[in-house]
């Protein structure tokens, strides 16, 4: 590994990390603003222009708050759990391509941190490890509500992971590759949302459940569980959970864009810009969902995952396989 490669890698890691860490406050601001307007309110507007600096102020406040450790908590696991959530979310970001490669200083620089040939599996692996952050956070607090929240989310995430993974197999079969870069390149002519529309719908529903967002936010259902798994967490530990949730939203949106919505392809504007436009639209859709749908009941959630989404994704998989075989 020569020096230039090393510098390139370090710069890319910092750019992506900075993008996530700056992006999260912006998404939170967008969420509060959009939710506000959808509920006929104004939303934050005091700190900075249009309330833009509100989340920064909230972040500083969280930094300054006392870090409370519940007396009965399992200290090591309590300390570890929020970290696991953030690390898995950030690890998943490393394989998402923001665009094709660009030439800079006479070097060909691909616009992603790394392109392993099993990128999609790496991503699924990272998200499946993300469950631990929530489950362990709920358990380590040693308190009733967080434990129930943690248990709920572990069952929920395992159930929806299956349908999510299977819905992506259709795309893998069409491109014949697990590399997100290859999948992105294959969509120059036709976005995969067209041949794989049902897979796209299943993927989006599952990814909302995977990130524990409304209407699937059973893990932190306020009306019954106070705040679910993060009830006992305060200060920066809470902020880390918050960060992980929004980083995970970026990851699943990035995968949806790369696998179904034409990755970085689009007319006129350069690739990365298209990626960010699509990302913003997708995140807006997320917020829109939250403002629209009431939370599901727990048994409805499990029944929906196992009896509707999983069979539907299997049917889609079989149909894609038959079609590809007949077409040759």
């Amino acid at each position, binding site marked *: 590994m020569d020096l230039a490669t090393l510098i390139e890698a370090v710069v890319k890691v910092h750019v992506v990390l900075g993008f996530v860490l700056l992006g999260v406050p912006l998404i939170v601001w967008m969420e509060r603003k959009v939710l506000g307007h959808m509920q006929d309110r104004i939303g934050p507007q005091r700190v900075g222009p249009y309330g833009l600096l509100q989340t920064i102020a909230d972040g500083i406040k969280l930094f300054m708050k006392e870090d409370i450790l519940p007396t009965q908590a*399992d200290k*090591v*696991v309590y300390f570890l759990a929020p970290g696991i959530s953030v690390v898995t979310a950030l690890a998943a970001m490393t394989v998402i391509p923001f665009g094709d490669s660009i030439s800079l200083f006479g070097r060909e620089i691909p616009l992603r941190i790394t392109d*392993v*040939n*099993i990128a999609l*599996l*790496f991503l*699924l*692996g990272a998200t*499946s*490890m993300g*469950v*631990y952050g929530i*489950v*362990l956070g709920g*358990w380590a607090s040693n308190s009733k509500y967080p*434990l129930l929240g*943690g*248990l709920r989310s*572990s*069952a929920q*995430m*395992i159930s929806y*992971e299956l349908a999510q*993974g299977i819905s992506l197999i259709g795309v893998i079969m069409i491109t*014949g590759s*697990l590399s997100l870069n290859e999948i992105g390149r294959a969509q120059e002519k036709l976005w995969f949302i067209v041949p794989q529309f049902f897979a796209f719908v299943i993927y989006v529903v599952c990814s909302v459940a995977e990130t524990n967002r409304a209407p699937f936010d059973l893990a932190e259902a306020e009306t019954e569980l106070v705040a679910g798994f993060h009830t006992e967490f305060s200060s920066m530990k809470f902020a880390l959970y918050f960060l992980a949730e929004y980083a995970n939203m970026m990851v699943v949106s990035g995968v949806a864009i790369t696998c179904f919505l034409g990755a970085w392809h689009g007319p006129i504007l350069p690739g990365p810009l298209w990626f960010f436009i699509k990302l913003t639209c997708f995140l807006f859709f997320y917020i829109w969902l939250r403002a629209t749908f009431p939370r599901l009941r727990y048994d409805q959630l499990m029944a929906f995952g196992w009896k509707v989404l999983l069979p539907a994704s299997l049917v889609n998989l079989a149909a894609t396989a038959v079609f590809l075989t007949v077409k040759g």
Partner: protein
Amino acid sequence: MFESLLFAMLAGIAIGCALGVVFHRNPVHCALLLVGVLLSVAGIFILLHAQFVAALQVIVYAGAIMVLFLFVVMLLNIKGETPLLTPGAAKAFGFLFALIVFVELIWTAVEPAPEGQGMPQALPLPSDFGSPAALGRVLYTVWLYPFEITSILLLVAVIGAVVLAKRKFF
């Protein structure tokens, strides 16, 4: 050099975590240490150029099965009160079987292989070794029957689990 250093590190973590699984009293900590073992074994798979197997190891074992383990441990709320060593006959049998496996392993490692049956010469790896495509090709040609039989076995297990869970309807 770099590879053997990485291997030593991963193997060390795996062994350390495995010892922790056995000796730790808190069942949740044991489960977590087992996740550590699985992850470091996945790292060793990557060192062997078997990325696909490594990914499956993380997704299936560390990501799904161990979460279910944790789920059950948390649901039953097992406290770390069970004694570290079971008394009497169980202890003696456990020791005996561990000793037999240990001797067997040492035996196979030390005993020289018979003429013509030794370790085959190391061949250069094909360029797509360990990739999903190569693995899939072998799985669906050479090992097709074992693969299909395994899938039937798993189906039987699934149906069995459903029947056991829904026994009150029969």
